[in-house]
């Protein structure tokens, strides 16, 4: 007994979609490898230099550690201040961007557009510009991190605000409370924990980011990173990287623990 297998629509029969996507990706792959001059052979023929570098990095110069302790502290301090300033500015913007608090679509749209634009800028690019403005040093770093975290935190915050329970707000509205009172008594208590949690999360990211900002002169450990790389002093580079790793992991650990307690 044979059964007629129903015919597929031709889009499916000729696998138009999967083949189309595969083709697009293949074309993009070929185009981008030509554009970037990817050459597998070259990587392997220069492998000697690369392994030499790795070998030199694998012998950390531990006596360099005391010298970089201070810049490491500075890195954390920059991250804390930058995140705090950014988060402080983010709160009013987040409130204005939340669709359940602000009903004016134009205002909301403009605020969100500003936030989207801020978020497109990579941190190192901001750092390069602020070093040009403020000169070499941690001021440029703090401002960079403030702007970078402002973009990130405000989005996280307004998404939190949009999930709140509107009941308490309506209750206060019905007794004629003004906007600020409503935000203070009905909005803040609901979102405080999540705000703090996101603040800590952003702090983690900023600690990571701040370790390289100095590469462009924006203060912190990155300054020493750049110096050691320029002087081909890779045993110092690896101490810096290892120390950064430890700092980042400690901060991550503390922050993760606090966030778990909070939520």
């Amino acid at each position, binding site marked *: 007994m044979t059964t007629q297998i129903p015919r597929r629509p031709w889009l499916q029969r000729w696998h138009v979609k999967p083949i189309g996507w595969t083709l697009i990706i293949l074309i993009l792959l070929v185009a981008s490898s030509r554009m970037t001059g990817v050459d597998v052979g070259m990587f392997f023929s220069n492998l000697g230099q690369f392994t030499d570098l790795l070998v030199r990095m694998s012998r950390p110069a531990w006596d360099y550690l005391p010298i970089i302790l201070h810049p490491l502290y500075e890195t954390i301090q920059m991250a*804390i201040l930058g995140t705090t300033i950014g988060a402080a500015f983010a709160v009013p913007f987040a409130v204005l961007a939340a669709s359940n608090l602000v009903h004016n679509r134009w205002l909301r749209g403009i605020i969100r557009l500003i936030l989207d634009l801020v978020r497109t*800028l990579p941190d190192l690019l901001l750092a390069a510009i602020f070093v040009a403005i403020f000169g070499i040093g941690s001021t440029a770093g703090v401002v960079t991190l403030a702007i970078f975290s402002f973009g990130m935190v405000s989005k996280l915050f307004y998404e939190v605000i949009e999930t709140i329970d509107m009941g308490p707000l309506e209750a206060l509205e019905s007794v004629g409370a003004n906007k600020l009172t409503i935000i203070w008594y009905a909005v803040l208590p609901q979102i405080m924990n999540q705000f703090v949690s996101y603040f800590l999360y952003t702090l983690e990211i900023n600690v990571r980011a701040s370790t390289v900002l100095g590469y462009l002169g924006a203060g912190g450990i990155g300054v020493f990173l750049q110096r050691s790389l320029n002087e081909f002093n890779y045993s110092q580079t690896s101490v810096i990287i290892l120390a950064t790793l430890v700092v980042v992991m400690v901060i991550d650990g503390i922050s993760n623990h606090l966030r778990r307690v909070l939520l």
Partner: protein
Amino acid sequence: MQTTISKKPATLNLWRRWNWLLWIAVVAVIYTWAITGLHFTGLQESAASVSRSIVHGLVQPDWSYVYNGSGEDLVSLILQTLAIAFLGTIISSLISVPFAFWAARGGKEWLHIRSGSGKVVLTLIRTFPEIVLAIMFIKAVGPGSYAGVLAVSIHSIGMLGKLFSEAIENMDRGADEAITSAGGNSAQIFMLATLPTIMPEFISYTLYRFEIAVRSASILGMVGAGGIGTPMIFAIQTRNWPRVGIILLGIVLMVLLIDSLSEQLRKRLI
């Protein structure tokens, strides 16, 4: 409510009531440390005039740089930046799959040597600064976008591997179970149940990671690893603000375009 609290030992009660004070003290100490530790250079005298020139440059960007056919113009370098991000992300997504299965926890036990070691490796990769990777690869393959591709490929494994492994841990194992019960061997279970179940999520995370890679590819050039970052840092150093303005505009447009494109694709996937 009050009666239940008063039943607890008095010391605990006291602690509960006053521990916020401790927290405030801790936070105050941290901030004092942070503020006093930094040496604020203060505003340079030139800061105001530099800011003014930057704003001026942003308002009147150097349009002639957009395209001049030299291959060193904005459009060509933006395309090169996208190529670095694309190639790097694709390579890294392929390498991330085995890493993800290495790091994914199988059972319920909280300590697992295989998955634990995988997670540590991924964390190490993630924390290793991308800029340093780029510089290392420049030593290997010379300055240019190839080094950028390698840096993005390796650095992205840290995050993609983590996202993939979490997707594996949280995936619906139902189809696996069904193929097992139908008598499939482990290769068949993987190819016919695990992979098709997890694939859309993998693709979605890869797209998301591509968005991030576009941002990092645009700054890798600052250390010589190709893309739009190289002329950017050069223009900043030579105080060519109209040039900085047009490049910033280019980066912002590129990122906005890629983000919305990727978001559309991701929405259709899930």
